[in-house]
């Protein structure tokens, strides 16, 4: 009979304590640290997608391969070198064969046209011999390229982390005609340069188009009888003048919630920033002073505005609160800075810099530190714009003379600078990269 005496409790308590103390001896695992990784574009294989229409399957796979290659983060395998030409979503790939072709990931896809365009994709890791992601996607039947962009984004997210940017569109100024009589129209295209649609007529000169974050509205400056004025409207619909009685206005920018537009008003040599609520209230003056304050850009959280000002003598970038006031200069390097644009995550500001010897595109942190020059061109390079995940910047390049302007992309590490191949080979400038369409 176990008596609940103090002595017994002590005995068992001590015994239990001793057991606990003896316990499991700590294991000293062999521990190794590896510091520093190499950036190497990920070798990936995307065989043609299986489809009832093999041409369609190949076309979709071609778009995916081009997207991945253009990003600079992947090295897609040449289709001729693949062990399997057409993918099979439902079978496990032969990992040894793919490893022999030196690829780290394999994408098996299947795509079909029906009421909607529907696709299934599996991404496999050949080293682990396991599936990374498997999913199905739908897109509207009008734009059959879009399914390829959706699939590209899925692959990008699965293998590089973060979010993708392939399923997005860019508003820009499409240029055509001789230099003396250049026709400039507002247009929209897919981020890979395909699917160009003109949004406006070519009658009047237009510059600086911007798209709202929800991709429903577009705003730009158009030259009419009184000079440049800001026009705004639904994408694909009619545009109207933003402000009825401004002397001259330009450089519009949407706030992240799409409710407010900030723009510049030019009056007798002085330019100031104004903001107006799209609900219809009066515009509010944000900056005052006898200088040129223009090219405003909202931060992603809507609380700050970055803009160009020459109040200090030369054009520099300032940051102030979205209600106006408290403007702080952030650029102190050589030369003049303008066209500030805030990155979608708020961690960077891209700008154009003119240091006398030429134009440059660069990024810096919002406090002005860590300035990096990404593009240093003999031609005029300007007007940077971030892609939806903030890793790629699109900008304009004007070689001068009679040559057309063109749009180029570079990633925020300065790598992989390349021209955007626009359908029809038309000239292009002043791009604004919209957000992800999903």
């Amino acid at each position, binding site marked *: 009979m176990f008596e609940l005496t103090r002595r017994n409790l002590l005995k068992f308590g001590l015994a239990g304590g001793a057991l606990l103390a003896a316990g499991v*001896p700590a*294991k*000293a*695992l*062999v*521990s*190794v*640290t*590896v*510091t*520093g*990784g*190499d*950036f*190497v574009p*990920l070798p990936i294989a995307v065989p043609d997608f299986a489809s009832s229409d093999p041409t369609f399957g190949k076309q979709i796979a071609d778009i995916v391969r081009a997207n991945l290659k253009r990003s600079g*983060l992947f090295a897609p395998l040449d289709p001729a070198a693949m062990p399997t030409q057409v993918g099979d979503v439902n079978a496990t790939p032969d990992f040894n064969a793919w490893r022999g072709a030196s690829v*780290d990931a394999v994408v098996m896809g299947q795509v079909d046209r029906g009421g909607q365009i529907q696709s299934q994709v599996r991404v496999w*890791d050949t*080293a*682990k011999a*396991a599936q*990374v992601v498997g999913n199905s996607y739908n897109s509207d039947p009008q734009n059959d390229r879009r399914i390829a962009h959706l699939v590209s984004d899925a692959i990008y997210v699965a*293998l*590089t*982390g*973060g*979010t993708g940017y392939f399923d997005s569109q860019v508003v820009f100024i499409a240029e055509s005609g001789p230099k003396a009589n250049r026709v400039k129209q507002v247009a929209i295209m897919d981020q890979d340069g395909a699917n160009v649609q003109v949004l406006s007529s070519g009658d009047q000169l237009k510059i600086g188009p911007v798209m709202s974050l929800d991709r429903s509205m577009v705003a730009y400056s158009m030259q009419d009888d009184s000079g440049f004025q800001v026009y705004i409207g639904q994408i694909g619909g009619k545009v109207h003048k933003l402000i009825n009685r401004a002397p001259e206005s330009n450089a519009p920018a949407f706030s992240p919630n799409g409710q407010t537009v900030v723009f510049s008003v030019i009056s007798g040599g002085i330019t100031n920033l104004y903001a107006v609520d799209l609900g219809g209230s009066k515009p509010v003056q944000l900056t005052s002073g006898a200088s040129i304050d223009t090219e405003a850009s909202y931060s992603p959280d809507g609380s700050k505005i970055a803009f160009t000002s020459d109040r200090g003598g030369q054009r520099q970038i300032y940051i102030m609160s979205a209600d106006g006031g408290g403007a702080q200069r952030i650029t102190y390097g050589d030369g003049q800075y303008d066209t500030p644009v805030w990155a979608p995550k708020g961690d960077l500001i891209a700008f154009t810099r003119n240091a006398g010897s030429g134009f440059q595109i660069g990024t810096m942190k919002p406090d002005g530190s860590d300035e990096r020059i990404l593009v240093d061109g003999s031609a005029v390079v300007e007007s940077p714009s971030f892609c939806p995940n903030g*890793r790629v910047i699109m900008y304009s390049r004007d070689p001068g003379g009679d040559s057309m302007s063109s749009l180029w992309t570079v*990633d925020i*590490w300065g*790598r992989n600078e390349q021209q955007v191949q626009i359908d029809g080979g038309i000239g292009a400038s002043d791009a604004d990269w919209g957000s992800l369409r999903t």
Partner: protein
Amino acid sequence: MTQMTAGVTTSVIGHAAILLIALAGLSAAHPLQPEMVDSIAVDLVPLADVTNIRQGTLDSKVVKTDTPAVAESNKPAQLAQKTGNTDQDQVKPEETSKASPAPVENTAPKPAPAPTPTPQPPVEKKADPTPPPPVVAPQPAPNPVVAQPQKEVVADTGTAPAINDAPIPASKPAQLQKAPTKAPPDAVTDVPPPPKKTAVKTPLPDDTKTKPDPQARTADKVAELLNEMDSRGATTGAGGSPTLGKATGGAATLTQTMLDMLSAAMRKCFHVQQAAIDEGATAVVQVHLTRDGRVDGDPTVVSTTGPTTADMTGTAAVRAVILCGQDGYTMLPPNLYDGDNGWNTVQVTFNASDAAAG
């Protein structure tokens, strides 16, 4: 028939005769003597006896000894004092008419000679090696007791796995080097220590006789002190006190060099996206290895950090371990595979940010 009978008879007689002669003759032949071959005596000697590396015995006491710190000392560095007379030029040796005697090779003094029954003429004594002239310092060839440096190796390679979590510092060779100087050359305390000098070399200059006396005395005292230090318990050959450490002791953990080699091997395959490098993403991966260094099963991701590239870094880390391990991590020594501290399970921390780039 008669002709046949004659032939048969002759044949039989002939055969019988040959047989008889053979029988009689062959029995007188020499018996075949097998050759006696000299056999070589073979002894099976355990390695321990040859190298005198000896493991500790069970239940021996672990004695903490201070390893001499080579570089870490709190004493401020001091300028070395000049030794000898460096201010004045040394006296140029004069040419004398007397030729200096040639160095004499001394053999070991014979052990006490057995008393010879017949009285030898005194002449024989003179045939003994002449005592060397006083100019040359007598260098008795190393005593048999002393002249076996290999036996003086400190048997401390079996020490202290029990107290050792950290990899063993690579100071063993230094410790081994120290041993010979500490072995007491037993009889001769006056003569400066190194018995390793061969007799072919010119003998030492006459230190013992020409050194100023106080220095000689200090040197002697130091030598005595050194000789009287307590032994660290090392055994030389058979016998002696038990050594430190466990009988099953060996180097319990991988040395830092091997860990570095393993880390370098895996780094070659660690490919990450630039975003991961910028973010300084990390991933901790645990992997089981087979005895020949190959990856056993799937490495598991224990944890990852990084705002947007954590998962991707984890995948890249697993890929690095697998791809660079396809031919096996052969730099890992098989004898350290087993046990809780063995490399049958390895935890690898991958850090995408390049420390060197800062």
